[in-house]
Structure formats: structure tokens, C-alpha cells
């Protein structure tokens, strides 16, 4: 039911309107061009609308239409491989309709309504179904079987079910109460999709990034934040996760960041192979690109659009990872809109509800038992862009109170091109302990010890560095000099990982283990040699030590590593170690 009102005032991305009798978050069409907007404040007869498109030239007195629906996304086959703006308009369709620059007043639906999908029913007439029940499947991409589910708030008995080629609008199933089901459902983005039960995350998300998997793992269904100043590696880290994580589905949200970065993903992902399936990465990916120069109101909506799509695939029983780059731009969009509403500002001008919004968002992550009884998960990884790189600011602080993993990027490391420039002393993962069992069973029984020892060594290095700053490294006793050397090896050989190197960009867990094990072997042999009186200079000038630095880059890692390990044995034998 449509209600018509009119514009009273326009200032930037918000308009005040009268006469539309709205509920909060109703979607309205603003002005003669029908710009899309959303009601965000109601005050007596006047309500405030945030407009998702540029408002230049819009005048008081122009019409406003309230369609009486909250901001929703279309969920169904065809989401994968799409690139959307913040309100689920496919950017490809926008380009076809209006060219290379985004003009306004163009609508485009999230799913392709003409395309035929081959629907295979999995229920029969007479079956009882309820919210979340799977009634059939569609092969969406080569590896993703899209489960067609009954919308959460619907239940009944199947009275008719069809198989074959259908569009997302066609009725494929009829319930005895007359409810028609199609392959598409709409869901309001600001409302979490329900699940049967939350489960404890107990498996790691394997990312192929040594410092993440090795030192600060995130669980499937967990939450992580990557704060860091500009140029420290937030985007590259997020893209690495999107590329190499062992996840079924990736939702990547470019929220208020660069256009070229999204173009990059669009260019690269169809070419890169999913390490798990060998299929192009794009086939498991949904992109949302509301770049910094696109309307801020749509930027505010983009994270909700993204997480709703993620929940939809989770409900099918998939492991989904969602990257939001950057949550700070989302928070700033909130701030910008809030200041237009002349709300009381909280810390640094952010609205008082900032922390509530952040936690509501991260709460939508998790491992769940879905309504249909499948297990699925959403891992949420948010980049944070603190002004001046100062982590004490509100967005970083509020995020840290919520997330379980903190990957702290450090400009000092990125400036010297130590990548990923994740600070190993300040970062943490609250999953390290709970995942230890899994690592012990699936990587190696001694993995956890190996990892903890390395961590300890790095801590020790930091302490020794303080002394070195005062007296120079030559003044340290030889065993401490050796500690410094081993720590350097861990940093340079293990932690450093070049995202742009064809081999090093992804490191399987087995390789991570062998690499760290080799360093540890060197450490043990060197310590023994030192104890039996071999001079330090003989040890640190061993060729096998320098050669170990490069094995991670080798196509044939195993052979290269074994060659180095043999050489290591020989060299230590020669200099008189054990």
C-alpha cells in the first residue's frame, strides 16, 4: 500500500518529509526521480529520510512515496559472482543502464529475474515443511549447490511441487494453505535471520597465511579485527583471506574505500583458483562495492546487505567468511548521518549508539545449527582505520571489546616492508587455546609446542632488544646473541610472507609446520654447537641458514627443504656440533 507525501527540506544526504505515515526503516522514493531512501527518524508529522543517491537539485515540495517495506535484499540463486552497491543494485546492470558513471534514479533488482535455473525438488507432495526447510536445490556455480529454503516465518504442507527450469519469480512449490513459494525470498537487512541454535566455534579458518594460522588463528564462526594506519596492510590482508581461506562462500564488502581495489578483485578473482576446489574464486564470492565517493547512506547500508547475504548461505549449511573493509568508514557514515539529524554526539562526534551497532553487527557472526538442522558459520573479519593510526579512538576500542581476534597492524613494520605487518607482540587470538586440540589432531602433535616456543622466543627478543639499544648486540653473551638470531629467522623466514609472490602468497598448513620445524631444528643444533664450544660466528655464517630463508619461495618446497636440512646436518657435523 503506497502512501504519498512531500519533501519539506533537503540538506546533503538527508531529507525531511511529511505525510508518509512511516514506520522506522521503511523504504521511500524521494522526489520526481524516485531516489531511493530509508526512514531513519520519526518526529511528529515530520520524518527524516537518508537518501541513497545524490540529492542535488531536489526541491521542497517534490513528492515522496512510501511503499511500506523496510530495506530488503533479494535472496536466491545468482548472488554468487555478483558485484553490488550498498543497496544490492548490481553494478554491471547499472553500467549497462547508464554508462561508466553512476547517475541517479535508476533502479535495478538484486537478482536476475529473467534467468532460468534448473530446480531439483527434494520434497514431495504431503511433506510437512517449516521455516528453513530445504525444498530443492539449484546448481548455482560448479561447486555451490544452492539450497532453496522455505522462508523463516512460513510453514505448512506441500500440496504441489515442480522441477525444471524456472526464473526466481516462478512458483515452484505450493503449500496447502495456498502459500506460493519461489526460489527467491526477500529479507529486511537490519533484521538478523533466525537460526535454531548457536554453537561454539571449534574449527580454525585456515587462511594459508603463516602469522594468522600459526600465531593468531581465527575460528570458523569467529570474529576478528584488523586495525592499522593507512598503508599498513588491511586491504591486502583482507584480500588474502578472501582468496585463500578454506571457506565455502566469501562476502567481500568494500565499504567506503577505493574503487580501484574493487576493480582489482573483479579482475583477479575470476582468474585465481580456489585452493580447495580448483574452480575460479569468483564462483564462491559475492562483492559489495560502495566506494568512498559513492553515497554515504548506501555505505551505511552496505554492511547490512553483506551480512544478510552471508546469513542466507550460512542457513544452507555453508561456511561463509565476510570481510568488511573498512568498518571505520561505516562508522563514519553513521556519524555523518547522525550529525545531519542533529543528534547529541558521543565520543569524537560518533553517535551514542555506535558501540551498540558494532556489537549487533558482529553478533550476526557465529557457528549455528540452522533452521533446517545443518551446521553453518559466518566468520566476520573487519578492518578498522583509526585516525592517525591511534588505536585509542572509539571505533577501534569498541570493536576490540567485541571481537575475539586482534591482528594489530604496525606502520613500523610496513615501512620496512615486513609483511604482513602484524605486530606479533600486541596481537592476540582468544581461540588459540580452544583450537589447540584441533591443531594437535590435524597438523602435528608437536605443533602447539612449536608455536608456543616461537612466541616465547619473540617475546624474549623484544626484551633483549631493549638491552641492545643501550649496549649494542656485541656486548651480549653468545647464547643471547643466538636467541636474537633465531628470532630474526622466525620473523624473516616464517612470519614474513609476500602476498604478491606466486608461491609464497599461500602456504598450506603442512608447509607452515615444516618451515617452523626446520627453524627449530637449526635452533637446537646451534644451541648444542654453542654449548660444545663452537664460536658464534661459525654458526651464523652457515650457508644452510641463509638458504633456509628462501625455501618458502620454491615451487618444489619439499625438495628444497630437504636439501637445506641435509646441508644443515653436514655443516653442523663439520663445525663440530652434535
Amino acid at each position: 500500500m503506497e502512501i504519498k507525501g512531500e519533501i519539506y527540506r533537503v540538506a546533503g544526504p538527508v531529507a525531511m518529509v511529511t505525510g508518509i505515515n512511516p514506520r522506522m526503516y521503511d523504504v521511500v522514493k524521494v522526489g520526481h526521480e524516485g531516489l531511493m531512501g530509508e526512514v531513519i527518524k520519526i518526529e511528529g508529522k515530520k520524518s527524516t529520510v537518508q537518501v541513497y543517491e545524490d540529492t542535488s537539485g531536489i526541491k521542497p515540495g517534490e513528492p515522496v512515496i512510501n511503499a511500506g517495506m523496510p530495506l530488503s535484499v533479494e535472496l536466491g540463486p545468482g548472488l554468487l559472482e555478483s558485484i553490488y552497491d550498498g543497496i544490492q543494485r548490481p553494478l554491471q546492470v547499472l553500467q549497462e543502464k547508464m554508462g561508466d558513471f553512476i547517475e541517479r534514479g535508476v533502479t535495478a533488482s538484486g537478482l536476475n529475474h529473467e534467468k532460468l535455473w534448473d530446480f531439483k525438488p527434494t520434497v514431495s507432495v504431503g511433506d510437512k515443511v517449516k521455516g528453513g526447510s530445504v525444498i530443492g536445490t539449484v546448481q548455482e556455480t560448479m561447486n555451490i549447490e544452492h539450497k532453496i529454503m522455505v522462508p523463516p516465518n512460513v510453514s505448512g504442507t506441500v500440496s504441489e511441487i515442480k522441477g525444471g527450469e524456472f526464473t526466481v519469480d516462478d512458483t515452484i512449490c505450493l503449500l496447502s494453505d495456498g502459500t506460493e513459494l519461489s526460489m527467491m525470498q526477500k529479507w529486511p537487512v537490519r533484521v538478523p535471520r533466525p537460526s535454531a541454535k548457536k554453537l561454539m566455534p571449534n574449527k580454525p579458518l585456515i587462511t594459508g597465511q603463516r602469522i594468522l594460522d600459526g600465531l593468531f588463528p581465527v575460528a570458523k564462526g569467529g570474529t576478528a579485527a584488523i586495525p592499522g594506519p593507512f598503508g599498513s596492510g588491511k586491504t591486502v590482508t583482507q584480500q588474502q583471506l578472501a582468496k585463500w581461506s578454506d571457506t565455502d562462500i566469501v562476502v567481500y564488502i568494500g565499504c567506503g574505500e577505493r574503487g580501484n581495489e574493487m576493480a582489482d578483485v573483479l579482475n583477479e578473482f575470476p582468474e585465481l583458483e580456489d585452493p580447495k576446489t580448483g574452480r575460479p574464486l569468483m564462483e564462491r564470492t559475492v562483492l559489495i562495492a560502495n566506494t568512498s565517493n559513492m553515497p554515504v547512506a548506501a555505505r551505511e547500508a552496505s554492511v547490512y546487505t553483506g551480512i544478510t547475504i552471508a546469513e542466507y548461505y550460512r542457513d544452507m549449511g555453508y561456511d561463509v567468511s565476510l570481510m568488511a573493509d573498512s568498518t571505520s568508514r561505516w562508522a563514519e557514515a553513521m556519524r555523518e548521518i547522525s550529525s545531519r539529524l542533529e543528534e547529541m554526539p558521543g565520543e569524537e562526534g560518533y553517535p551514542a549508539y555506535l558501540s551498540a551497532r558494532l556489537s549487533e553487527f558482529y553478533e550476526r557472526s557465529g557457528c549455528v545449527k540452522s533452521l533446517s538442522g545443518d551446521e553453518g558459520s559466518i566468520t566476520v573479519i573487519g578492518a578498522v582505520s583509526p585516525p592517525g593510526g591511534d588505536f585509542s579512538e572509539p571505533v577501534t576500542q569498541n570493536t576490540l571489546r567485541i571481537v575475539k581476534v586482534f591482528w594489530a597492524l604496525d606502520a613500523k613494520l610496513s615501512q620496512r616492508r615486513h609483511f604482513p605487518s602484524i605486530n606479533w607482540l600486541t596481537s592476540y587470538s582468544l581461540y588459540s587455546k580452544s583450537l589447540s586440540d584441533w591443531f594437535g589432531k590435524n597438523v602435528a602433535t608437536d605443533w602447539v609446542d612449536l608455536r608456543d616456543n616461537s612466541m616465547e622466543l619473540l617475546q624474549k627478543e623484544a626484551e633483549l632488544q631493549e638491552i641492545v639499544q643501550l649496549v649494542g648486540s656485541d656486548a651480549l653473551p653468545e647464547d643471547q646473541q643466538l636467541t636474537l638470531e633465531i628470532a630474526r629467522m622466525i620473523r624473516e623466514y616464517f612470519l614474513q610472507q609476500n602476498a604478491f609472490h606466486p608461491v609464497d602468497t599461500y602456504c598450506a598448513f603442512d608447509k607452515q609446520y615444516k618451515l617452523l620445524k626446520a627453524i627449530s631444528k637449526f635452533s637446537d643444533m646451534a644451541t648444542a654447537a654453542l654449548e660444545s664450544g663452537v664460536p658464534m660466528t661459525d654458526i651464523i655464517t652457515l650457508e644452510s641458514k641463509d638458504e633456509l630463508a628462501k625455501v618458502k619461495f620454491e615451487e618444489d618446497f619439499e625438495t628444497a627443504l630437504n636439501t637445506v636440512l641435509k646441508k644443515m646436518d653436514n655443516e653442523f657435523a663439520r663445525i663440530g656440533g652434535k
Partner: protein
Amino acid sequence: MTKEYKTIVEISGPLIFLEKTEPVGYGELVHINLPDGTTKRGQVLDTSADIVVVQVFEGTGGLNDESGVVFTGETIKLSVSKDMLGRILSGSGDPLDGGPRIVPEKMADIIGAAMNPYSRMPPEDFIQTGISTIDGTNTLVRGQKLPIFSGSGLPHNEIALQIARQAKVVGSEEEFAVVFAAMGITNEEAQYFMEDFEKTGALERAVVFLNLADDPAVERIITPRMALTAAEYLAYEHDMHVLVILTDITNYCEALRQMGAAREEVPGRRGYPGYMYTDLASLYERAGVIKGNKGTVTQFSILTMPGDDITHPIPDLSGYITEGQIVVSRELHRKGIYPPINVLPSLSRLMNSGIGEGKTRDDHKAVSDQLYAGYAEGLDLRGLVAIVGKEALSERDQKILEFADLFEDRFVRQGRDEDRSIEDTLKVAWDILSELPEAQLSRIDNKFIDKYHPAHQGK
């Protein structure tokens, strides 16, 4: 729409408030006729049935409630044409060179619509600037936005001009143009640019917009938008490769802050508007390459960091948007090194796509990483030596310490007219790297060491 209103109820800073108007569009261009017969321009910032707020570009000096206000029903547009090349225009697009008005081929809205990310082509054509610290370690590519972060009194203008003179895509002869927009710089600085453009003949291929220090600050809000509109027109409708130089972004942001204060907005960090990120993005993001389009827009802007502080909101927000930054260092400048570019905080985010085999050279990335690692460590050691003396360093560390000096002296330092090819730059790099023990070159694959290390040559 030629109705003139004399209903100004308040004038405050650069803003005027009017009542009892017909419905007025948000963002509309406004003409204000002063009692003395002059006309100023402005733009609608807030419009409602009760009150309309207008910001006046030329400032509100001389305005009173007798002034007449005309709403044009249009947003601000620039007359664009290929004939703009060789012209000098004011900060709001009027001729300053005594030449005729630009006969428009088109009227273009200066608030450019956002480029659809789906239409973008990732930039990847290497631009050789002839400056080693850029080409070697912070490579610029066509369609990139890479600003210079500098400080007052540092030679950023000279660097920008050297780049404008020397920049080329090796082996390509396509049409190029320069769009230069001055925002609040001094007349003398502007002259410095103009003379260089004239001397080198670049002026013929340039469009110049001048908003100088004594021009109204509010005009600075539209000057860069005019410049970028001209640039997009030349790039996307005349297939040119356009280099846009905006200087000084800091003055632009000051104007933005002033406007925010006049509107009594809740200020963000250090008094700058909370929307400054979004506003700056609406400038910087107007660079790039469009699929299927020959022309490109590359931005090389200048920004002076207040107090040399890179965490100040202006460089900070810029760095979050631009595709890297070239940082000019006061310390290197004091040491007499030109160009005093400090590579450590500098970055070109698009470097990886512009270099390597078939573009620059296969060893480029590894060499660059190694230079960074060596120089960074060398600087740490310099700090250490100041405390413990050189003797306390191991032999290895002494070599690295010396490497830092070599790096500054041979790689960073070069002549004001020295145009190094990428091969020259990489040669200097290998020459200084070969002073390090080979085992230290851990960032470089052995195959490159065999191929390029001077000690391996002729083997």
C-alpha cells in the same frame, strides 16, 4: 526562474540565509547581485519551505540585505572544450589570461558522478618519472592518485615540476595534457609553475586554474572540481592522458573547515568536518582508467603537512584514500639531498601492478624490497651508533650502516634535471646492494642475483 529575491535575513561568514522563496533545489547555483552592480556566485547548502542557506564562493564582503538573489535552477557547470588547452583560468573557471571565454563544446557538471567500480580497469602502465625514489621504490602508474606529502619550505614544487617535465610512458606517443589547479598558493609560487610551464612548452598542453592566496577561500571548494571536470573531459572525450596537479590540498581542507565552522557543524578531529574523508574522496577518486577508454586521469597532488605531522587529519585522511604517498623529508633536505624523498613512509600501492617482467624488469620488486629492508635497518643502526658508538657493531651491522649512507647518497640524491631511465635506477640499486654481503640479500631470489648482481656479471 529569473525571479530575484531580496529576502536575506542573515549573513554569517560565507553563508547567507533567505526566507520566503519558491522551492529551491539542493546544490543549485545561485547568483547574488550586489547593490554596487557586481555579481557573486553561490550554492544552496540547505533548502526547505522556510529557509534556504547559500554559501557564497567569492565571500560575503559587500553583501547586505539589499542584495538580490537569483536561483538558476541548475547545478554548477563548467564550459569545457579542447580549446581549454593553453588557457589560464580563475579558480571558478573565468579567463585570467585576457583571452576570450571558452566556447563550450559541452557544459559539464563539476560535481562528477562516481565512476562505477565495475567500469574501472586496474591501472598498470608504468610512468617513468626519471626519479629513482619514485620509479625504483614507489612506482607511479597511469590512472593512479599519488600525492606528495611535504612540509612548508621543502622543495615539493620542484619535484612536482620535475615529474611533470620528465614523466613518460616508455614507448608510447599518445596525447597527454596537464591540468594544474592552484588552491590558495602564493602568487610567487604560482609564477614559479607558470614560468616552468612556459619555458618547457608545457603550457600549450596545459589547462591552468588559479585560486591564489588572496582569492576567496570558499572558491577553493570548487577550484579542484573545475580542474577535475576539465581533466575528465579531456581524458574520456578526447582520449588524452591527463596529469592533474592539485596544490595545495591543505589550503583546500582549511577552506572546508572554515565552511563547516560557518555552518556551525559539530566539528570532527582537530576542528575539521566529520565528512572530510568523504569530501576528499570525491576529489581523489576522480582518477583512474575506464575499461575500453583510451584516456586516463592521473593525480599528483601536493599537500603540506601542518607541523610535518603525518598523523594530522589532512595527510591522514588523504593517505587513507590515495593510492600511496611520496613523503618529502626535512631531514634529508637539511642534509642537502635532492630530491629529499624519504622512501620509508612513502608508498605506491599500485606499484606491484606496474612493474616486473614486460613492464619494468623481472627483478624490480625484489630489488625494491631489499632496498627498503636494508635502508630501514641501516637507519635503526644509525640511531644505535649515536648511543653505543660504531665499535659496538658487528661487522655485518657496520656494512648495513654504510649501506644507508650509500642509499641516500647515490640512490636518493640526483640532479634536478637528471632523468634516470628505469635501467639506470636499477643499476644504481644493484651497485649499492653489491656493497652488502651477499647473504644479506634475503629478499632477492637467487636467480636474480645470478642475473644482475655485479659480482656475478661475466660469469
